[in-house]
């Protein structure tokens, strides 16, 4: 990751895409969210979803996988240029999460994240807090998920915190 000071509000990062298979949808559901419409094609067809679809928590877990991969890629590129990587994480939480459309078998979801705001952390000197809007879009160009995440990111110097 980049350091807190280097991060520009408004910047958008493309995190990459993932195609959801029936096998992984059922595997995640059987471990964490075994509602019939995430587990069984026939039950899903009889439900308002109409087809087997991923647990919303599965969509989020895939977002995180691509987000971490992106952060690691940035760290590698920085290392290649002789720049130190900034530490990041953990996150205090998220808000305004919307599961806008189901993620069906075979859907390819592309994720992106935009920096909405940044401020120095009051509770953790030497760290800043980023606010990010993340969106997942399917192959038809429809948004399927949107949420606002918060994450701690290391600062290069101890910035005096702003009032919270």
């Amino acid at each position, binding site marked *: 990751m980049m350091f807190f000071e280097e991060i520009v509000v408004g910047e958008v990062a493309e995190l990459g895409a993932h195609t959801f298979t029936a096998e992984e949808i059922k595997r995640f559901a059987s471990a964490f969210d075994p509602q019939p419409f995430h587990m069984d094609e026939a039950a899903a067809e009889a439900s308002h979803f109409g087809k087997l679809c991923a647990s919303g928590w599965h969509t989020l877990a895939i977002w995180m996988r691509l987000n971490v991969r992106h952060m690691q890629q940035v760290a590698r590129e920085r290392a290649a240029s002789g720049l130190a990587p900034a530490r990041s994480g953990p996150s205090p*939480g*998220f808000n305004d999460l919307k599961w806008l459309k189901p993620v069906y078998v075979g859907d390819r979801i592309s994720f992106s994240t935009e920096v909405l705001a940044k401020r120095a952390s009051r509770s953790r000197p030497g760290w800043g807090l980023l606010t990010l809007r993340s969106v997942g879009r399917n192959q038809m160009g429809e948004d399927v998920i949107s949420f606002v995440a918060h994450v701690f990111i290391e600062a290069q110097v101890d910035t005096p915190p702003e009032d919270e």
Partner: protein
Amino acid sequence: MSLRYFEDFEVGQILPLAPHTVTRAEIVAFAAEFDPQPFHLDEAAAADTLLGGLAASGWHTCALFMRMMYHGWISEAASMGSPGVDSLKWLRPVRPGDTLSGRSVVVELRASKSKPDRGFVRFRHEVMNGRGEMVMLAENPIMLSRRPN
């Protein structure tokens, strides 16, 4: 099995989450697949981070919360899924060996205006560890079928 429909919920009602003990193996397995950051994978690497030791991915805690909710009450409810989560806070790290428990509290009921077959029940979900500390707090609506006539 008699399902719990939208009409069967009332404000203030408390529904239990099924307890779950989190193992080190499942923390590392989830992290390896979805959130491979050092503080979710390895004790030594986690020691010098803001988490101060190995802890579950917040997304793992979310997934476990869903499972605890399924086994606690959703498996017997006419759930149609959820449109989203208004807010979710990870308040404390979840560590290997923690036994999570908790509850879903009904805070609001709203019948759908556009679709007469369903309603929205808004919950405050509280997840606690074995020391009685809250580790996760969330608020979200869950869509439930109305009782068929």
